[in-house]
C-alpha cells in the first residue's frame, strides 16, 4: 500500500531532512512513526501527500507513483489520504461543521449527503454538540477530534496523523489514539507520528523510528498478546528489524 524506497529529501539549504529511507506499510496496518523533533516525521507525511517531492528515491502510495504523478492527479491522491495535521489546519472563520464538511464539498458530494456523513462522523468522534461552534471556542482535545473527523469524511484508505496527541493530557491523548485504533480495525491504514512514548508502549503496534532523517529502527510486533488495544500492554514481545534493540535504546528514540 505504501512503499518508500531509498528516499532522500534535501532542502535548498543543503540540509538533508531524510536520507536513504526505505520501508513499506501494508494495507490495514497501524504504524507509529517516532523520533525526536527534526527527525523527518513530518517530511515523510509531506512526501506521501505530494506536498513536497523527494530529492531521490521512489514513493508508491496505493499503486500511484508519487513522483511521476501528474499535478492534475494530486487532488485525487489527497482525497484518498486523510491527514490530521500537526497544527490541525482548521479554518478559524468557519464552524466545526463547516470545517469537517470541507473535504466533501471539495469532492462535490451533495449537501444533503454530506450533512449526513459529517454528523455521523462527528457523533463517532464525540463532537456533535460542538457542530456550530468556531475552532476558537473548543478545547485542544476537541480540536484534535475535529481535525480527525475532517480527515475521515472521505473514508480514506490511508490516514496520516501528525502528532495528534501533542499538547493533550494523557487521558485525552489515549482517547484519540483509541479512536484511531478503532478506525484502523475497520481497515484504514494508519501512520501516526508521535513523541508520546507511553502511547507507543501501550498500544501494541509497529514502530518506525527515525533519527536525524535516517531510519533508526523498524520494530514490528510479532506476538499480539492483546486482541484489542488496552492500557496494559506489559507482556508484548517486540521483534526488531534489522536488529533487536534494548528497551533503554527504545526510549532514546523519543
Amino acid at each position, binding site marked *: 500500500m505504501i512503499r518508500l524506497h531509498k528516499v532522500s529529501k534535501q532542502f535548498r539549504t543543503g540540509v538533508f531532512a531524510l536520507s536513504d529511507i526505505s520501508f513499506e506499510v501494508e494495507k490495514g496496518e497501524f504504524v507509529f512513526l517516532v523520533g525526536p523533533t527534526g527527525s523527518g516525521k513530518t517530511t515523510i507525511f509531506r512526501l506521501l*501527500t505530494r*506536498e513536497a517531492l523527494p530529492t531521490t528515491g521512489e514513493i508508491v502510495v496505493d499503486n500511484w507513483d508519487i513522483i511521476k504523478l501528474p499535478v*492534475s492527479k494530486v*487532488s*485525487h*491522491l*489527497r*482525497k484518498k489520504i486523510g*491527514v490530521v*495535521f500537526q497544527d490541525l*489546519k*482548521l*479554518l478559524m*472563520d468557519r464552524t466545526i461543521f463547516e470545517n469537517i464538511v*470541507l*473535504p466533501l*464539498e*471539495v*469532492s462535490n458530494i451533495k*449537501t444533503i449527503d454530506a450533512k449526513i456523513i459529517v454528523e455521523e462522523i462527528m457523533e463517532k468522534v464525540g463532537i456533535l454538540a460542538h457542530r456550530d461552534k468556531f475552532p476558537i471556542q473548543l478545547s485542544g482535545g476537541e480540536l484534535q477530534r475535529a481535525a480527525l473527523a*475532517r480527515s475521515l469524511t*472521505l473514508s480514506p484508505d490511508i490516514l496520516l496523523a501528525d502528532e495528534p496527541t501533542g499538547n493533550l493530557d494523557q487521558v485525552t491523548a489515549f482517547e484519540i489514539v483509541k479512536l484511531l485504533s478503532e478506525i484502523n480495525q475497520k481497515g484504514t491504514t494508519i501512520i501516526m507520528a508521535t513523541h508520546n512514548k507511553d502511547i507507543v508502549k501501550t498500544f501494541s503496534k509497529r514502530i518506525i523510528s527515525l533519527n536525524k532523517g535516517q531510519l533508526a529502527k523498524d520494530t514490528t510486533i510479532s506476538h499480539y498478546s492483546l486482541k484489542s488495544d488496552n492500557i496494559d500492554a506489559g507482556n508484548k514481545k517486540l521483534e526488531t528489524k534489522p536488529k533487536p534493540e534494548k528497551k533503554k535504546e527504545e526510549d532514546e528514540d523519543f
Partner: protein
Amino acid sequence: MKTFKTTWHNIRRSPYQAFAAVFVMTLTFLFISFFTFLLYGSTKAISYFESRPQVTAFFRQEVKQTDIDNLKDSLMKTDKISSIKFVSKEDALKIYREQNKNDPLLLELVTADILPASLEISTVKIEDLSEINNTLKDSPLVSEVVFQKDVVSVLTSWTNALRSIGLGLIIVLSLVSIFIMVIIIGIKISQKKQDIEIMRLIGAGGWYIRWPFMFEGIFYGCVGAILGWLISTGALWYATPFLSLFLKGIPIFPLPLVFLLGLLGIEIIVAIVLGTLSSFVAVLRYLK
C-alpha cells in the same frame, strides 16, 4: 452553487475592497455610457444634416417658372443629384410663418412677394457639392447659394475626433480597471493564503479554488456596469428636456429604449470580459 456562496462570502468579508472594485468599474462604465450617448447623438446629428438639403439656390424675383424648370432638368441630367425640391414663394412664406409663429410682428411685415423661390438640392456624393454649387452660382437666374458642406464636414471631423479620443480613454480606463481589480483580487488571494493551502491539502482541485475568485471579478464588473448604466441613463433622462430644447429641430431625444437596453447588454458582456480577464491575471499571478 457552493462556488457562488463562497464568492458572496469572500465579497462580504472585505466590503471596502469590494466597494473599491465596484467603484472603479462603475466609473469606467459611466464613461463608456456617456461616450456612447455622445457618439449616438453626434451620429444622429450628422445624418440629420446630411438628410437636409445640402445646397439651396435662391432665385431672382423676376425669374420665370419655365427657366427654373429648365435649370432643374439640366441638374437632374448630371446624375449627381439624389433629390431636388422646388420651393415656391408661397411655400417659402409658409415655412417662414411656421418658424416665426410666436412673433406676430415679423409675420405682419413679410409677404410672399419679398421671399424668393428656391431649389433645395442634395447630391449623391458629398464631394459633388462644390461642382453643383459652382454651376448654380454661375447661373444668371440665381441670386444666392447656401451651401451646407462645411457644417457636415466640421461635424463629421468632430465626431471622428470624439470617437478616437473616446476609444482611447475607454482603453485607458479599462486597463486601469483591470490593474486595480488584479490588485484587489490579489490582496484577497493573499489574505486567504492559509485557507487555500488547507483546501489544497485536503484535495481541492485548482479550479475549485480559482472559481470563486473568477466569479468575484465578474461580479464586480457586472455590478459596475449596471450602476454605470443606471447613473448615466438616469442623468440622460433628467437632462432630456433641456437637451431637446437646446438641440431644437435635431431629432435625437429621447433615446430609444431598445438602444439603451442594447447598451446595457453590451456593457454587461464587456464587464464579464473585463472581470474574467482581471481575475484570471490575478489568479495566475497570485495562485501559483
